[in-house]
């Protein structure tokens, strides 16, 4: 049902209980109870080995799985947060530019070398971090680490490629501006963060056209270095050879600066913004507000709140309501989106024009309902089981392990975060969940953004809060 599965016509279903059974193949017969299954098996997190080089670069190795491949990811603490004002997407163009050649290798040689190892090199930037990564056959892990190290330390930034990469960004921007989800997210972020870098989701054509070699090189020089970097290797590999490659290839990197800390200050007030998208057949809804970040003690209770309301399963109340009961929408979901010492919760849904206000009403109703009464024990138990089950699955793939570890490191969650996660989730009570909903999902702070056909929907949204531009 996830957005990522868009093209394979995912399906699905669940919902409310209807009394009228139309085609009763088993009419009259009592329903059989499902079998319980066997005894639970232990899940042990794959062991990891951490070390640090003299220049401050950290490394984490995790031996995992039977597939003869290794995933290598270098995470660097720099991203859109570190861009000078009015240089939005400079971090993205710089990260993309890095694989266009190093002092010793052309872009074509980099691509060919990675391909011969059974992978490719990717590089990109997000709000807080930039990454250079790839997934290769096990026997090439040390060689690939050397390639990543070369790209991180010795990028050539050939000027001949500047025009093309800027043009690619202009195209990307133009396409993103035609997507309703992007427009809604950009407005939502702007409303929460204002002028803080986290509020600048999209660049402008003028900004992109103004990128120069100087700006790109200065950004790279000011922000990349060993102290800000963490290399992860996950999968099957020769640990000795991998460690040697890390020491050899990264040992000489300059220390560079410590991570820049620029926390966002957020204090929202209830508002409704309608972004006009003439001709829309659906309205894209973003409903949410800033919440505590993953380092806060209440963050796990808030995660449960998220799963209970809209996060990722058909157990979620909002999904059951507006999809399985009402049929208003296909893929509603909620999520807690995090950055360093920052987070927001948001419910997203694309609904038919005529049911825009009814869908919004149901979403707000479900939030209020959880604030007003604790969930039933059985409902909470189901959610806790779902969360621990998906936790095991996340920790059962190279990419999942790499993501969860780098997330833990970024947010500074402590060495026992993963090993106690399941236990802590199960320890939460219905009252804890209600309390977290009351504390963090306050209606007077809720931001509502709707992208759609303004002339058809604007009037119906007037009762939902002060309308803002």
């Amino acid at each position, binding site marked *: 049902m996830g957005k990522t599965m868009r093209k394979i*016509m995912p399906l699905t279903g669940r919902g409310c209980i209807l009394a009228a059974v139309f085609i009763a193949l088993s009419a009259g017969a009592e329903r059989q109870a499902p079998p319980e299954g066997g005894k639970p098996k232990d899940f042990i997190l794959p062991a990891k080995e951490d070390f640090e080089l003299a220049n401050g670069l950290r490394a984490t190795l995790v031996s995992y799985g039977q597939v003869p491949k290794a995933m290598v990811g270098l995470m660097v603490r720099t991203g859109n947060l570190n861009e000078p004002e009015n240089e939005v997407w400079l971090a993205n163009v710089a990260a993309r530019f890095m694989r266009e050649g190093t002092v010793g290798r052309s872009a074509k040689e980099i691509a060919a070398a990675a391909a011969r190892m059974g992978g490719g090199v990717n590089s990109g930037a997000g709000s807080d971090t930039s990454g250079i990564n790839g997934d290769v056959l096990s026997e090439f892990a040390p060689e690939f680490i050397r390639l990543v190290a070369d790209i991180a330390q010795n990028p050539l930034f050939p000027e001949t490629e500047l025009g093309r990469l800027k043009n690619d960004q202009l195209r990307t921007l133009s396409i993103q501006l035609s997507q309703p989800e992007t427009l809604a997210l950009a407005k939502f972020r702007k409303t929460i963060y204002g002028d803080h870098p986290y509020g600048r989701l999209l660049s402008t*054509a003028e900004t992109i056209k103004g990128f120069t070699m100087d700006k790109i090189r200065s950004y790279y020089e000011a922000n990349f270095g060993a102290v800000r970097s963490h290399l992860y290797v996950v999968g099957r590999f020769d640990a000795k050879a991998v460690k040697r490659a890390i020491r050899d290839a990264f040992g000489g990197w300059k220390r560079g600066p410590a991570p820049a800390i620029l926390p966002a200050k957020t204090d929202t007030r209830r508002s409704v913004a309608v972004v006009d998208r003439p001709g829309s057949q659906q309205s894209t809804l973003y409903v949410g507000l800033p919440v505590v970040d993953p380092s806060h003690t209440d963050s796990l209770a808030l995660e449960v709140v998220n799963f209970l309301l809209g996060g990722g399963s058909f157990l979620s109340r909002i999904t059951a309501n507006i999809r399985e009961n009402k049929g208003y929408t296909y893929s509603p979901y909620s999520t807690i989106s995090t950055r360093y010492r920052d987070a927001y919760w948001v419910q997203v849904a694309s609904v038919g024009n005529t049911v825009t206000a009814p869908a919004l009403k149901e979403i707000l109703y479900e939030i209020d309902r959880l604030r007003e009464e604790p969930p039933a024990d059985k409902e909470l138990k189901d959610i806790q089981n779902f969360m621990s089950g*998906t936790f095991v699955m996340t920790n059962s793939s190279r990419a999942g392990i790499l993501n969860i570890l780098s997330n833990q490191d970024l947010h500074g969650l402590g060495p026992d975060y993963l090993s106690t996660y399941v236990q802590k989730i199960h320890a939460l009570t219905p009252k804890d969940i209600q309390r977290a909903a009351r504390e963090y999902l306050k209606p007077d702070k809720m931001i509502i953004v709707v992208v759609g056909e303004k002339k058809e929907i604007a009037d119906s949204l007037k009762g939902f809060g002060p309308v803002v531009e």
Partner: protein
Amino acid sequence: MRQRTAWIVVAVLALSLAGCSRTAISFRVPVEYYQLKNGLKVVLSPDDTAPIVAVAVYYNIGFRIEPRNRTGFAHLFEHMMFQGSGNLEKGAFFRLIQGQGGVFNGSTRFDFTNYYEILPAHKLETALWAEADRMKSLDISPDNLKNQQGVVVNEVKVNVLDQPYGGFPWLDMPQVANENWYNAHNFYGDIQDLEAATPEEVMDFFKSYYTPNNAVLAIMGDFAPGEALALVKKYFESVDPFPRPEFPDISEPRQDKERTFSKDDPLANRPALALAYHVPERLSPEYFAMGLLDQILLKGQDSLLYQALVKKEGLTGAVSGGINLLGSMFNYQGPMLWTVSLFFDDIASSGRIISVVDSVIDEVRTNPVSREDLDTALVKMRSGLFDTMGSGFGRADLMACMALFDDNPFAVNELEQRFKAVTPELILKTAQEYLRPSNRTVLTIRPKKAAQ
């Protein structure tokens, strides 16, 4: 019960490469294959990497052969399989699976519809019970159908009708590149067809195609095969089979003239272009050559089309595509396309893009690829195959399709060899026949708005 077993333990073969201390590692998976008396094919592949298990049921009915007056019906029907069965009222299935720590999904493809769960290993029996229950007894109401018609209409809107480039090229291209209705209709469904479906049609479809002799059950993960097989028999042997309808003729005539189409997209800001070629018959030697041509031409930043269109000419930022855009080159059975697609800036440069593609393709149709380039293509293919075979769901999908279409799931361990057998001469011959301009369809998306 028919039984065939091949137990190939995961083998790590250290082969030394000439002049190099590195070792090439091979990866094979265990496969056990059975068939119950009612015709249900069962494939088991244990793997104790993590305490989870994937259960997948594949039915030999895809959107290709759905009823002619009901486009999108196979997919709408898939939604109905989650709306209730004999012992699971509406909503009970998802609580049963997700409430015990599992995930599930289903999907409708060209030639099959699948339903799967990935869950904690000790819940294998629960999942088998649930899949057997809905194979035996669909139990839905008119309200359930109405609800899911609403959901699916919203799905088509959010993925296609209300999105820039909606349906490009995965839904659009088959409709213009194929001639046979089965391959060329709108398989997501026209809204009026989706809304016209009745509960009686849903039950008829169930009674036509959802029979054990038209299905495969694949289990992959942390389980003991003997115990799993006993559970499979316990729950599935009692499902009665019935004859399924004859397969219609889904063949496509050989294309001998290039076809060109364009589509106006009022929501798009930039033009887009896709080219599609009919590919060789699945599992033929030429098909494996085509898989390697896909690697050489299109996959990765080292590929010839990326190097020419992105790196050298700067006409686009990425090229994407492959064989079967709704899955992989392995999970279909019938006529299929190899598609290349990209976004660009100015509709006037579409001719330039096509001429660059032509020059790249002319090269592989004129000269045999070098041994080195072929080896790189093989490494890329092998690396991808290992991932598919290593992940719970990827392996289940591969094995289920090979059991469903070819009655031979053991072939998952032979794929690597089939690719290795491809010679530069076979690549050349395959390119000459299948990458002919006259075997091609070109589709251009024209934005209405001025480029921003």
